[in-house]
Every structure is written in structure tokens, then in C-alpha cells.
């Protein structure tokens, strides 16, 4: 799953015109873009082939250059410049050409079939569809990176990663996407305000519904979320479904199993959300991500559901004394996996199959995943890296509450794959999540419509099917 702090709402005029052009709507002159994609042979590269060693497991050739493209979104790009320092300390004779952008797909997709960059951080709202990249053979499997020794010398790269990172990056049995950040999702609140009012942060829906009138009495809305981008409420709904119905049901949903959405516990998970909307506990208005997050910071709403990039994204406007604290999504009594936490590795790097210097790209990934690199990442972004122990030395209420949530969580991490597997289901689930949270669908209707959408994809022979095993 990709973590996407940057949204489609944030547009520069230039990129919009580019996209407008790309979609072929300025009648058709724009289809000229398509011609940029016509095939040609990549130049023969002369990059690999140097002696392999423990410090150079892929045999990167001295004097070669590697082109790295960083997604400059909610996490910024300063951390990547620090990784460049780490990399250059070991390989002073390899030139690193680093650039950063918010428009990964707009800029990188046209180059994929001909002369791509060596290492691309495929993240943000404008990222390339992962299933398509893999199905078209456009990106390289990176299993040899996992078995390579870790940058700092202890064990392999795979050993140094947080659980879930490898499986998140695996598709069709091969490891393609190196997620470098670890994001935790849940309900955020201002601990200082709660202390001041004597409110106890709820852990179950019942506790929340009991607390809600008290919050309302103070002139605050109990809850707010991004109501413009459907994948925001979808995180919350899917986390609730996992907690209520258990992992197997979500795996069945991802695998388009017959009647998966009708399984025990799915409807029960969604009913509190329906009640939340019906009881008017949401902040009025259909706010987008930054508007809703600002409303939360302004004290207009007590809880907001979003991931751990929140702190970094809103850093400029956090009022003094605001204790941004993360708590787990609420559960119902009788839930099958109430303790499981919704966390995932994100911010995925890919190496294009036609990249001229794949060896150096993999070597650079090793540097990003190093202890020094990942500690810098956590320090600069206030988000956990997917390398173990990255946040241990950072003092911050947001990061430490996320850290302790991870430590006290259940045995499994909540995850769902169907939006990555199937673009149609991605779109449909976003739309229906918005409809449920707008009160235009009941929980029962949501379940029925999701089942119908899943059945439609299952029957469509033009869509390549994926299987989730773990």
C-alpha cells in the first residue's frame, strides 16, 4: 500500500496542463505524448561487472553514475540527501544524480519503456500503478537485495527490516517494491486538551459514543476526516473490518472470494461508522486532507483519523502546547482481532527493468535501509523507517505514541491489498467509502455494493488476477 500524504488537490498549473494534455482532451494534439512511449532499444550499459565483495555485493563499477528520483511529498526530501552522504562515504567514485518531484508518474512513466531513471521512489497520488508495472515487466525483482548483507554488517538486509516490509513489497512471489517508511494509522487526539477536560481517550466504540456528548457540549465536533479523497475513510473502514472479522476475511476480500464482503463481522464493523454519521458526530462540511487536519489542530474536532505523516505534513501550523497523540482505531466487544494495529510499510522504491545502472540502484537502496540512513529518516520526518530501531532515539509525542502502539499491538499488522491489485475496485471502494461517510449509504448497502463490485472484477477476463497468501 502506498502512503500518500500528497493529494491530487495540490496542483501546480503546469502539471495539470501536462495531465490534461496527456489525457488527450485538448482534442487530440495531446496524443503526441503517446508517441513518446513508442518502443526503442535502451543503450547498452557498461555499469556492472566490477568485483563483488561484502561492501559491494552487486559489483557496482567505480566511475559509473546512478540517477535517483525522490518523491518530495509530506516527508520532504532532506532525508534522501542524508542517504546520499551515507552512500558516498562508501562509494566516493560513484556519481549520484538525485532529483525530487511530486509528479512521479507524469515525469517517469513516459521514460519507462526507453531510458528510465535507475531508482524511482514511486509514491504519492501521482504514482505509477504497481500491478501494471509488474504485469508489464517494467520493474526489476529485487530478491537479491534481501539476501545481500546489511550495510552496517550484521546479517542480511531482510533481517534488518520491520515485519511486513518484505511481504508488502512482494507480488507474484517476487520482491519488487522496497518500502522505506513505516506508517501507523489510527485516531489522533490532542492529549493536552484531553487532560485539561479530564476526558479518557476511548479504546472501544461504546466508550467513544459515551464520550461524544461531552465533547459536543464543549462546542467541538467529536470526529473529522478527509471527505474528498475516498482512500482516507477507506483506511478506517478496512481497519475496522479486520479488527471485527479477523484477518482471514480481509484476505478473502483481497482474493475476491465469493461472498467475502458478506462474511460475519464485516457489517458489524461498519455499523458504528454509520451511527457516527447518523448521530451527526462529524464536523460539518466536506473538507479535504489539509482542511480537516487544520480543523483538528484548531480544536474544532476532537479526533481525526490519518497516518503518522500527519505531524510532518502539518508541522508549520501546529499550535504551541498541542500534544499530537495517536491511538488505535476503536473496536467493538467480541471483535476477533481487536488488538491488531493498522501499520504498513510505504513510500516504495522501484528499479526499472531498463535502468542503465541497476547495480548502483540496489546499492543505494542498501544505504537508505542502513542504520544511519534510517535514523536520519526518523529524525527528520518524525515517521518510522522500515528498518528496525529507527525511532528509538527520537523524542516526540507523535512518534513515541506510534512506537508504543506498535509495541502493544496484536500479533498481526492490519493490511489490505485489493486497491493495489485492482484499479476498478480501488476507485469503487473509495467512492463507496465517501458515500457511507456522507450518510448516503447504510452499512448494509455499502457491503452489498462492494460485493457486487468485487464480483464484477472477478468475472472480468481482461483484468489479471492477483492472489494474497499472507
Amino acid at each position, binding site marked *: 500500500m502506498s502512503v500518500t500524504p500528497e493529494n491530487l488537490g495540490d496542483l501546480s498549473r503546469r502539471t495539470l496542463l501536462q495531465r490534461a494534455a496527456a489525457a488527450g482532451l485538448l482534442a487530440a494534439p495531446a496524443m503526441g505524448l503517446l508517441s513518446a512511449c513508442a518502443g526503442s532499444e535502451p543503450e547498452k550499459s557498461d555499469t556492472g561487472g566490477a568485483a563483488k565483495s561484502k561492501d559491494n555485493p552487486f559489483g557496482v563499477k567505480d566511475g559509473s553514475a546512478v540517477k535517483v528520483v525522490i518523491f518530495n511529498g509530506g516527508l520532504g526530501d532532506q532525508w534522501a540527501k542524508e542517504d546520499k552522504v551515507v552512500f558516498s562515504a562508501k562509494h566516493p567514485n560513484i556519481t549520484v544524480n538525485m532529483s525530487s518531484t511530486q509528479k512521479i508518474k507524469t515525469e517517469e512513466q513516459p521514460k519507462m519503456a526507453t531510458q528510465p531513471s535507475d531508482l524511482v521512489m514511486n509514491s504519492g497520488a501521482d504514482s505509477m500503478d504497481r500491478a501494471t508495472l509488474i504485469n*508489464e515487466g517494467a520493474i526489476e525483482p529485487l530478491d537479491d537485495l534481501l539476501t545481500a548483507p546489511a550495510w552496517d554488517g550484521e546479517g542480511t538486509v531482510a533481517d534488518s527490516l520491520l515485519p511486513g516490509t518484505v511481504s508488502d513489497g512482494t507480488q507474484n512471489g517476487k520482491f519488487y517494491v522496497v518500502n522505506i517508511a513505516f506508517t501507523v494509522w489510527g485516531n489522533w487526539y490532542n492529549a493536552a486538551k484531553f487532560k485539561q477536560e479530564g476526558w479518557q481517550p476511548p479504546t472501544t466504540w461504546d466508550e467513544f459514543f459515551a464520550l461524544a456528548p461531552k465533547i459536543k457540549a464543549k462546542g467541538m465536533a467529536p470526529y473529522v476526516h478527509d471527505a474528498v479523497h475516498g482512500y482516507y475513510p477507506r483506511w478506517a473502514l478496512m481497519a475496522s473490518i479486520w479488527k471485527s472479522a479477523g484477518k482471514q476475511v480481509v484476505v478473502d476480500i483481497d482474493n475476491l472470494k465469493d461472498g467475502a464482503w458478506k462474511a460475519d463481522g464485516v457489517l458489524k464493523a461498519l455499523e458504528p461508522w454509520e451511527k457516527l454519521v447518523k448521530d451527526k458526530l462529524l464536523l*460539518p462540511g466536506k473538507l479535504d486532507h489539509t*482542511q480537516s487536519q487544520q480543523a483538528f489542530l484548531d480544536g474544532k474536532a476532537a479526533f481525526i483519523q490519518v497516518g503518522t505523516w500527519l505531524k510532518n505534513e502539518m508541522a508549520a501550523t501546529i499550535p504551541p502546547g498541542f500534544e499530537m497523540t495517536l491511538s488505535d482505531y476503536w473496536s467493538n466487544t467480541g471483535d476477533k482481532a481487536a488488538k491488531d494495529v493498522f501499520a504498513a510499510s510505504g513510500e516504495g522504491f522501484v528499479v526499472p527493468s531498463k535502468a542503465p545502472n541497476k547495480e548502483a540502484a540496489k546499492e543505494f537502496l542498501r544505504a537508505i535501509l542502513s542504520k544511519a540512513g534510517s535514523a536520519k529518516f526518523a529524525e527528520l520526518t518524525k515517521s518510522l523507517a522500515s528498518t528496525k530501531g529507527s525511532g528509538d532515539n527520537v523524542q516526540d509525542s507523535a512518534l513515541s505514541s506510534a512506537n508504543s502502539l506498535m509495541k502493544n499491538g496484536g500479533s498481526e499488522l492490519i493490511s489490505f491489498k485489493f486497491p493495489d491489485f485492482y484499479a476498478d475496485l480501488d476507485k469503487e471502494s473509495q467512492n463507496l467509502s465517501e458515500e457511507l461517510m456522507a450518510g448516503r449509504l447504510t452499512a448494509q448497502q455499502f457491503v452489498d455494493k462492494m460485493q457486487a463490485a468485487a464480483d464484477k472484477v472477478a468475472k472480468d477476463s481482461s483484468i489479471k488476477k492477483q492472489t494474497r497468501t499472507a
Partner: protein
Amino acid sequence: MRHGVARFVTGFLALPVALYLFYVVWPFAQAAGYSLTDWGGYSDSQRFVGLDNYVRLLSDELIRKAFWHNVFFLVTVPLFTIALALFLAFLLNVGGREDRAGVRGVFGSALYKVVFFFPQVLSLVVIAVMWQQIYRTDSQGLINGLLIKIGLVDADNPIAFTADPEPFLGIPAVLWWLLLIAVWSGAGFYMVLFSAAMQSIPKDIYEAAILDGAGRFDTFFRVTLPLLRDTISVAWVYLGFIALDMYALVFVMTPSQGGPNHASEIFASVIQFNAFQKGQFGYACAIAVALAIFTILLAAVQLRITRRDRIEF
């Protein structure tokens, strides 16, 4: 000598024509070619599938929805824009008092001309971003804030604007809100176009009509409108193209680009979804080619319908 002229002209035209062929016509042909394949957009392998993509788009529910939304804009955008532009142009040129100096516009018409034309100076994206603030869905929005202050709108139930799929006159509300922006931003340009055309109508025709006792209503419908026929028909075709596009507004202003729940889906947003999210470039090209054919046919029909003998003056 004649021979030399031909060579001269050819010399000048060869380069532009070559550029046009390479950068405009050739990509057209390529897109049409891709529309017959299952190309995904990320590799250089593709399989020829014949007309499969075209057969598929006929039964695609989303395209049917997008088609009707485009038809809505196709009818309303030219209608409202031209009506408003004509009305404004008439007031600015011949709507004022008539006196010894002859027919003139309303008081202050020079200022109004600049004010109404202003949206045309802004890029469509700037307009969309600006209207996002006007349409903001809580009390901080320009319209909502104002209406909440004077008590016309309940603060707990503000207007949702482009996040509102509820039908108004059978059409999702979001489309009406987008239409308002399109008309607002387009009317100024056509006002200037019509103004220019009106100024080329000899003043004595108006004076003769006034002497015969024609009021403002009659001068407009019996003199101005018939003499502007050519200009209006051209405007109609241009606005038809704009109505078939509408992409920038939908892309910036609606939830999930075409939402809520497909309520503002248009051809361009369906093409964008299929090409760039679903990775089905071949199919997306087929939709684009179908749209291009539809557009050309439409322009031909419009020009045909409005064709008439020209009045020379």
C-alpha cells in the same frame, strides 16, 4: 514569374506542414493505432486486438454515464454562455439611452467590458483553485460563510457544492455547480466577440428601426440577433468543444476526480482513469478516438444547421 511564386510559397509552407504532420497528424494516427491493441502503457509490447476495445466501450456503463454528463454540458454550456454574453454585449453596445449622438451602451460600459472579460485572462486552473475557496464546504467558504452569517444556511448543514451528487432537475448538483463556473469564466470572452460583431452592424439600421418605433426588445430580436447569426454559430461550435472537455474543472474540483460516486464523470476523466490508473492505454485510446470522431461529427452538424445566406453590409 508564376513559376517562381509557386516555389516561393512551397518553400515557406514545407517546414510548417512537415512539423504539423509529425507533431499533430502522426500522433493522431498513432493513437488510432494503439486503440486497436491491448497496450498497457509501461512496456513496448502490445497485442493487436482488432476492434475489441470499441466493442467493449459500447457496453461500458461508466462511459455511458460520462457521455450523458458531456451531453448535459454540451447543451447547457453554449446555451447559457451565449445567452449571457449576448445580453451583456447588447447592454454594452446598444442597450443605453438613445440621444442625438445615436445608439450607445449603458452608462459605464467601458468599465464593464474590462470587468466581464477578466476571467478570460486567468487560466482555467487558477479559476478552479479560486472557486474551490468560494465553494469551500464549511463556514470558511465564501458563499457558505456569507449565507451562514445571514442565517440562510444552517452551520451544521452547509452547502456541499461539488461534493453533492443529489439530483437537481434530474441532474447531479455537482454538474450544475461546475456549469456555473464554466459560464462565469466563458461569458466575458464571447461578450467581447459579440460586441465586436455588433459594432460592425451599421448604426443606421438601428436608427431606422428606432424611427419605426421598435423598442429594445424588438431591436435585439429582429435586428441584432439575425445579423449576429454567423458569429453565434462559430461561438456555438467553440463552446461545444469546451463542453466536451471540462476536464480541468472536474479534475481539480470534484472528489475522487469524477465523484462523488461517479456523479461528475466525463469522457476525459474516464480516459484518464483507464490510461493512467488502470493501465489500459489501448482502451483509453479507443475512447479518445471515439470522442474525436464524435466531436468532428458534432462540429459538422452544428455548422450545417446554422448555415444560411450571408447578409452583406
